[in-house]
Protein backbone atom coordinates (compact mmCIF):
# COMPACT_ATOMS: atom_id res chain seq x y z
CA UNK A 1 0.00 0.00 0.00
CA UNK A 2 1.10 3.56 -0.57
CA UNK A 3 1.43 5.65 2.59
CA UNK A 4 1.51 9.42 2.48
CA UNK A 5 3.72 10.73 5.27
CA UNK A 6 3.88 14.24 6.63
CA UNK A 7 7.25 15.44 7.82
CA UNK A 8 8.18 18.27 10.16
CA UNK A 9 11.21 20.15 11.34
CA UNK A 10 14.52 18.52 10.56
CA UNK A 11 12.70 15.45 9.17
CA UNK A 12 11.20 17.66 6.49
CA UNK A 13 14.68 18.76 5.50
CA UNK A 14 16.08 15.22 5.61
CA UNK A 15 13.23 13.79 3.55
CA UNK A 16 13.28 16.68 1.10
CA UNK A 17 9.64 17.73 1.38
CA UNK A 18 6.72 18.32 3.72
CA UNK A 19 5.10 15.15 2.45
CA UNK A 20 6.58 11.93 1.07
CA UNK A 21 5.07 8.72 -0.21
CA UNK A 22 6.41 5.28 0.63
CA UNK A 23 5.30 1.82 -0.43
CA UNK A 24 4.73 -0.60 2.45
CA UNK A 25 3.15 -4.07 2.75
CA UNK A 26 -0.50 -4.21 3.89
CA UNK A 27 -0.85 -4.14 7.71
CA UNK A 28 2.68 -2.83 8.17
CA UNK A 29 3.47 -1.63 11.68
CA UNK A 30 4.82 1.72 12.74
CA UNK A 31 8.03 -0.05 13.74
CA UNK A 32 8.43 -1.49 10.24
CA UNK A 33 7.74 1.93 8.76
CA UNK A 34 10.42 3.48 10.97
CA UNK A 35 12.90 0.90 9.80
CA UNK A 36 11.96 1.48 6.16
CA UNK A 37 12.33 5.23 6.59
CA UNK A 38 15.70 4.89 8.30
CA UNK A 39 16.98 2.82 5.39
CA UNK A 40 15.62 5.26 2.81
CA UNK A 41 16.81 8.36 4.75
CA UNK A 42 19.89 7.32 6.76
CA UNK A 43 20.21 10.78 8.33
CA UNK A 44 17.06 10.00 10.37
CA UNK A 45 19.19 7.47 12.28
CA UNK A 46 21.46 10.29 13.47
CA UNK A 47 18.62 12.08 15.25
CA UNK A 48 18.36 11.93 19.03
CA UNK A 49 15.15 10.03 18.34
CA UNK A 50 12.22 10.01 15.99
CA UNK A 51 8.70 8.77 16.37
CA UNK A 52 5.87 7.96 14.03
CA UNK A 53 2.41 9.36 14.63
CA UNK A 54 -0.66 7.65 13.22
CA UNK A 55 -3.89 9.64 13.08
CA UNK A 56 -2.42 12.35 15.31
CA UNK A 57 -1.36 9.97 18.06
CA UNK A 58 2.13 8.76 18.89
CA UNK A 59 2.33 5.19 17.57
CA UNK A 60 3.87 2.21 19.35
CA UNK A 61 6.25 -0.06 17.46
CA UNK A 62 3.44 -2.57 16.85
CA UNK A 63 0.72 -0.07 15.89
CA UNK A 64 -0.68 -1.23 12.52
CA UNK A 65 -1.00 1.28 9.73
CA UNK A 66 -3.99 1.19 7.39
CA UNK A 67 -4.18 2.69 3.93
CA UNK A 68 -5.60 6.18 4.34
CA UNK A 69 -4.22 6.74 7.85
CA UNK A 70 -2.69 10.11 8.57
CA UNK A 71 0.97 9.28 9.19
CA UNK A 72 3.71 11.67 10.28
CA UNK A 73 7.37 11.60 11.22
CA UNK A 74 7.96 13.30 14.56
CA UNK A 75 11.59 14.28 15.14
CA UNK A 76 12.58 15.43 18.66
CA UNK A 77 10.16 18.17 19.65
CA UNK A 78 11.44 21.54 20.82
CA UNK A 79 8.46 23.78 21.42
CA UNK A 80 8.07 26.23 24.27
Amino acid at each position, binding site marked *: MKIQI*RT*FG*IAREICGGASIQVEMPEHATAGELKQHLTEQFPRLAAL*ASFLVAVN*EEFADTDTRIQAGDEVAI*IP*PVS*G*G
Partner: protein
Amino acid sequence: MDIFLKISDEPLDVLFCIGLVTQPACGGIDVFIGTVRDATKGKHVLRLEFEAYEAMAIREMRRIAETAFEKWPVQALAIHHRTGVLHPGDIAVIIAVSAAHRDAAFDACRFAIDTLKQTVPIWKKEVFEDGEVWVAAHP
Protein backbone atom coordinates in the same frame (compact mmCIF):
# COMPACT_ATOMS: atom_id res chain seq x y z
CA MET B 1 -12.89 22.20 33.24
CA ASP B 2 -12.14 25.30 31.18
CA ILE B 3 -9.37 24.67 28.67
CA PHE B 4 -8.22 27.23 26.14
CA LEU B 5 -5.73 26.14 23.48
CA LYS B 6 -4.32 28.03 20.53
CA ILE B 7 -1.53 27.74 18.00
CA SER B 8 -1.09 30.91 16.01
CA ASP B 9 1.38 32.71 13.80
CA GLU B 10 0.15 36.02 15.23
CA PRO B 11 1.71 37.61 18.33
CA LEU B 12 0.43 36.14 21.59
CA ASP B 13 -1.43 38.27 24.14
CA VAL B 14 -0.62 37.77 27.82
CA LEU B 15 -3.56 39.78 29.17
CA PHE B 16 -5.94 37.90 26.91
CA CYS B 17 -4.70 34.57 28.31
CA ILE B 18 -5.02 35.83 31.88
CA GLY B 19 -8.55 37.00 31.11
CA LEU B 20 -9.43 33.55 29.76
CA VAL B 21 -8.58 31.85 33.05
CA THR B 22 -9.79 34.51 35.49
CA GLN B 23 -12.86 33.36 37.41
CA PRO B 24 -14.68 34.73 40.47
CA ALA B 25 -13.58 31.81 42.63
CA CYS B 26 -9.93 31.98 41.66
CA GLY B 27 -7.44 33.29 44.17
CA GLY B 28 -4.23 32.66 42.29
CA ILE B 29 -3.11 32.68 38.69
CA ASP B 30 0.29 31.45 37.59
CA VAL B 31 1.44 32.52 34.17
CA PHE B 32 4.50 31.22 32.38
CA ILE B 33 5.78 33.26 29.46
CA GLY B 34 8.44 31.71 27.25
CA THR B 35 10.41 34.37 25.42
CA VAL B 36 13.08 34.20 22.73
CA ARG B 37 16.53 34.70 24.23
CA ASP B 38 19.05 36.80 22.33
CA ALA B 39 21.77 34.17 22.72
CA THR B 40 22.22 30.39 23.06
CA LYS B 41 25.46 29.14 24.58
CA GLY B 42 27.00 32.55 23.95
CA LYS B 43 25.99 32.70 20.28
CA HIS B 44 23.84 35.61 19.17
CA VAL B 45 20.41 34.45 17.97
CA LEU B 46 19.08 36.26 14.88
CA ARG B 47 15.67 34.60 14.89
CA LEU B 48 13.76 31.45 15.70
CA GLU B 49 11.52 29.59 13.28
CA PHE B 50 8.73 27.55 14.89
CA GLU B 51 6.62 25.01 13.11
CA ALA B 52 3.85 22.82 14.47
CA TYR B 53 1.95 19.72 13.49
CA GLU B 54 -1.06 21.74 14.47
CA ALA B 55 -3.90 19.26 14.81
CA MET B 56 -1.73 16.82 16.76
CA ALA B 57 -0.18 19.59 18.83
CA ILE B 58 -3.61 20.74 19.94
CA ARG B 59 -4.50 17.15 20.84
CA GLU B 60 -1.35 16.79 22.94
CA MET B 61 -1.95 20.17 24.58
CA ARG B 62 -5.47 19.05 25.48
CA ARG B 63 -4.05 15.88 26.98
CA ILE B 64 -1.69 17.97 29.13
CA ALA B 65 -4.54 20.19 30.30
CA GLU B 66 -6.78 17.23 31.11
CA THR B 67 -4.00 15.56 33.06
CA ALA B 68 -3.44 18.79 35.00
CA PHE B 69 -7.14 18.89 35.90
CA GLU B 70 -6.91 15.29 37.13
CA LYS B 71 -3.83 15.95 39.24
CA TRP B 72 -4.58 19.37 40.78
CA PRO B 73 -7.65 21.40 41.76
CA VAL B 74 -7.27 23.99 39.02
CA GLN B 75 -10.10 26.06 37.58
CA ALA B 76 -8.96 27.01 34.10
CA LEU B 77 -5.92 26.50 31.94
CA ALA B 78 -4.80 28.25 28.76
CA ILE B 79 -1.93 27.25 26.48
CA HIS B 80 -1.15 29.54 23.56
CA HIS B 81 1.82 28.74 21.33
CA ARG B 82 3.29 30.84 18.57
CA THR B 83 4.52 29.58 15.21
CA GLY B 84 6.45 31.23 12.40
CA VAL B 85 9.44 33.54 12.60
CA LEU B 86 10.19 35.02 16.05
CA HIS B 87 12.89 37.42 17.13
CA PRO B 88 14.60 37.91 20.50
CA GLY B 89 12.09 39.29 22.99
CA ASP B 90 9.09 37.76 21.22
CA ILE B 91 6.77 35.47 23.17
CA ALA B 92 6.81 31.84 22.02
CA VAL B 93 4.41 30.38 24.55
CA ILE B 94 2.03 31.48 27.29
CA ILE B 95 0.59 29.12 29.88
CA ALA B 96 -1.92 30.56 32.35
CA VAL B 97 -3.51 28.54 35.14
CA SER B 98 -6.04 29.68 37.71
CA ALA B 99 -6.95 27.96 40.95
CA ALA B 100 -8.59 28.75 44.25
CA HIS B 101 -5.21 28.35 45.92
CA ARG B 102 -1.80 29.08 44.51
CA ASP B 103 -0.07 25.72 44.98
CA ALA B 104 -2.30 24.07 42.39
CA ALA B 105 -1.75 26.91 39.93
CA PHE B 106 2.04 26.72 40.29
CA ASP B 107 2.17 22.93 40.09
CA ALA B 108 -0.12 22.68 37.08
CA CYS B 109 1.58 25.51 35.19
CA ARG B 110 5.02 24.00 35.64
CA PHE B 111 3.75 20.55 34.72
CA ALA B 112 2.18 21.99 31.58
CA ILE B 113 5.30 23.71 30.27
CA ASP B 114 7.58 20.80 31.24
CA THR B 115 5.31 18.31 29.47
CA LEU B 116 4.71 20.56 26.48
CA LYS B 117 8.43 20.64 25.86
CA GLN B 118 8.52 16.83 25.90
CA THR B 119 5.43 15.78 24.00
CA VAL B 120 3.84 18.50 21.88
CA PRO B 121 4.84 18.28 18.21
CA ILE B 122 6.27 21.74 17.76
CA TRP B 123 9.78 22.39 16.53
CA LYS B 124 12.10 25.35 16.56
CA LYS B 125 15.11 26.18 14.46
CA GLU B 126 17.62 28.64 15.87
CA VAL B 127 19.19 30.86 13.24
CA PHE B 128 22.60 32.35 14.04
CA GLU B 129 24.84 34.60 11.97
CA ASP B 130 26.87 31.59 10.85
CA GLY B 131 24.28 28.86 10.53
CA GLU B 132 21.14 27.31 11.90
CA VAL B 133 20.19 24.34 14.01
CA TRP B 134 16.97 22.44 14.82
CA VAL B 135 16.90 22.50 18.60
CA ALA B 136 17.22 19.10 20.31
CA ALA B 137 17.33 17.24 17.01
CA HIS B 138 20.70 15.60 17.56
CA PRO B 139 22.15 13.93 20.67
